[in-house]
């Protein structure tokens, strides 16, 4: 039985490879490095089917790509990039402008996919991601609650659910100490219309808006499982799947998993909705994920690499992996899981996550400093003042601030 399964699996793999190798045959060796998760796995597989492509799927790729692309010739032909990982690559001028290649081979791509810096296309976005509301329709309907659209409504609904005793802790949120917790602050602060920096890059988060965000975070924390400081995206996904929480604000890319019958005991009951409003904008940021090609490689290799990018985003490929991500390339049909993201994007009120040097340092300082407020060892103003001080020290050491 087991052996039979094995051989079937092998046969299926072979078939898939044969089918995809339609007309993208590649003769120039191309080496890729990318983050490791299903959307990249499917793109890497599509590229490999064309031949002569070696793909590295590496969770730690961001620690390696700057050095790897600085080598001459570059260790890889192309890499995956996001809003934030693109910054050091563009700073060190390690990416090849793609305009000429797009003109020649990129007709199948959508112009919306082009990441342009000063008019030059430096990367091709493959899919987008954002954060939005996911809620248990059955619970909200039973209690006669409307779907919340703002954070105040969300908190009110959560309190109602808790009062009704449906679940112990009505909401889940990725409050894990470090990057996640800082990211929550970043989103909410942008939702309040806050700006992180003054004109001279000195910090400006210790204000009413910052304090309002902290107070809201504390309010949210009080409605969450007390282990919220270790709750990352996977933890929140599991809370939703196991019916432990009634609502969550989560990454759009998890919308498929929460209703996956193999993992979820409440499959089909969770509905997606638009991200929640802060007082001025949605407390959500838009992220793109895509590919960029190294500068330090021969033109021939760059050309082959670009063809591979195109081959990984044909309408057939996108259709075959439709639910792996919110694809930007033509051929994507948003399903039920994509409703929340689609509405969030369509509103035009979710900003892209900033692409500048200073936000990295600020995000770090927030990640290290916010927990002290939630654990109660500092008050809001002290927390924000300490974070500003930590940012100044850090930015000065990194040369970002004079």
């Amino acid at each position, binding site marked *: 039985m*087991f052996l039979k399964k094995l051989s079937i*699996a092998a046969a299926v793999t072979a078939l898939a490879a044969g089918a995809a190798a339609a007309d993208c045959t590649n003769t120039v060796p191309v080496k890729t490095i990318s983050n490791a998760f299903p959307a990249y796995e499917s793109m890497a597989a599509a590229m490999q089917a064309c031949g002569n492509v070696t793909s590295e799927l590496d969770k730690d790729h961001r620690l390696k790509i700057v050095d*790897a692309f600085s080598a001459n010739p570059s*260790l890889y032909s192309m890499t995956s990039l996001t809003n934030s990982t693109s910054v050091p690559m563009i700073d060190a001028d390690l990416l090849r402008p793609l305009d000429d290649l797009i003109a020649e081979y990129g007709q199948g791509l959508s112009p919306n996919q082009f990441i342009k810096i000063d008019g030059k296309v430096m990367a091709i976005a493959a899919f987008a991601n954002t954060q939005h509301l996911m809620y248990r329709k059955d619970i909200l309907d039973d209690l006669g609650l409307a779907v919340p659209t703002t954070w105040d409504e969300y908190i009110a609904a959560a309190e109602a659910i808790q009062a009704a005793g449906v679940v112990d802790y009505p909401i889940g949120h990725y409050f894990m100490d470090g990057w996640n917790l800082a990211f929550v602050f970043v989103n909410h602060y942008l939702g309040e219309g806050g700006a992180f920096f003054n004109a001279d890059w000195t910090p400006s988060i210790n204000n009413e808006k910052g304090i309002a965000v902290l107070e809201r975070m504390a309010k949210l924390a009080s409605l969450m499982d007390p282990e919220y400081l270790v709750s990352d995206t*996977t933890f929140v996904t599991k809370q939703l799947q196991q019916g432990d929480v009634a609502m969550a604000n989560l990454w759009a890319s998890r919308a498929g998993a929460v209703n996956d019958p193999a993992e979820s005991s409440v499959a089909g009951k969770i509905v997606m909705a638009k991200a929640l409003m802060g007082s001025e904008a949605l407390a959500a940021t838009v992220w793109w994920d895509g590919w960029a090609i190294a500068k330090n490689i021969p033109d021939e290799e760059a050309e082959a690499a670009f063809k591979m990018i195109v081959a990984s985003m044909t309408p057939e490929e996108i259709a075959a992996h439709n639910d792996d991500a919110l694809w930007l390339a033509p051929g994507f049909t948003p399903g039920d899981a994509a409703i929340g993201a689609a509405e969030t994007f369509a509103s035009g009120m979710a900003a892209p996550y900033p692409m500048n040097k200073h936000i990295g340092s600020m995000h770090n300082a927030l990640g290290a400093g916010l927990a002290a407020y939630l654990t109660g060892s500092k008050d809001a103003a002290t927390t924000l003042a300490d974070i500003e001080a930590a940012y100044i020290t850090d930015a000065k050491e990194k040369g970002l601030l004079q």
Partner: protein
Amino acid sequence: MSSPANRQPLGLKLVSNGFLALWCLVAAFPIVWITVMSFKSPLDAFDSNPIRVIVGPRTRDIAGGLSILDIVLGLLLAWALIRLALKWLPGQVRALSPEGRHWIGWGVGGGVFALATLILFTVILPAALGVLNPLAGPLGTDVIGLTTEHYRAVWVDRGFTRNFANSMVVTCGVVIVSLTVGTLAGYGLARSGSSFAFWLLVVALIFRALPHSVLVAGYLPYFISSSEWLAPIFGESAPTLYGKPWAVIAVLVAINQPFTIWMLRSFFQNIPQELDEAARVDGCSHFQAFWRVIVPVMWPGVITTGLFSFLLAYNDFLVTSLLLDAQNMTMVPAIANMFNRETTASDEVQAIAAAVSITAPLFLLVMVFQRQIVSGLTAGAVKG
């Protein structure tokens, strides 16, 4: 053993064995538990009710499982095989293998036995049970949910075999190089009474204190750009150190040297100096004395030290995850890769299955070398 000093009152016996039983439970429980989890569907594996995790009702509905008959027959077969391995196999090995070459016999015998066990459990037993289960009525219906799907996903779909091979290359490389270099140094340090030797040891120990993350982050840019800065020496063929298993072997050997030379030095100090001095009087050089007199008697200590090197290399995460590329990735960072931005509950159970898989070779290793560890340490590998 029966000396009066070892005779104990009943109370002490009870307390001491009770403590031992408790400790064994504590020591084995987490490992046994993740093994159980690795055979269940994600919903069952992370259930808060332990009975449901063991029985796995949802796994049973999806993927089937074991009937009482399966369990009884499986246990009987396992018991028979263990009896065979303990009682019958040693005799056969002794009778059939050439005199003085028992280890060949053990290698062949063990290999054949392991293969037979594998075939019995994966082919013959399932086939027999496939016929018997429908006939056995209630005894033949599945009671415990069990799925090997996660293991298949790890080893087949995720290509874990390649990671396994890479781990073996790195680990064996580290053990061999580390012992070769460390044995020489340990012997040198043991036979030199100078203060210099002592301070060398202390400095090595302080080196051991440097946080590995700092070391590795320091190597990374040099390893990646090595074809540029090595070009003046090697010309066109200058290698890129990043991603090369042998470069990682060198790093791990160096990181592990302080511990290795410390252990081997203590061990050599317990080999009487008269032995090699006698050889020296007979006109041997230091190296000849080392080769002829010390090497034959050093194996207990070397095997013990080697096991520690093995553990370090096999379990290393920081060095291997940063300095190896995907082609040469070893098992531990490969498991860490499963916890990525989009980790699902299924990924987590697969990571558990992978974690159990990588523990299995360690099990075997300790089973085989258990006696050597203790005797090596007894022989003085750790005399402070």
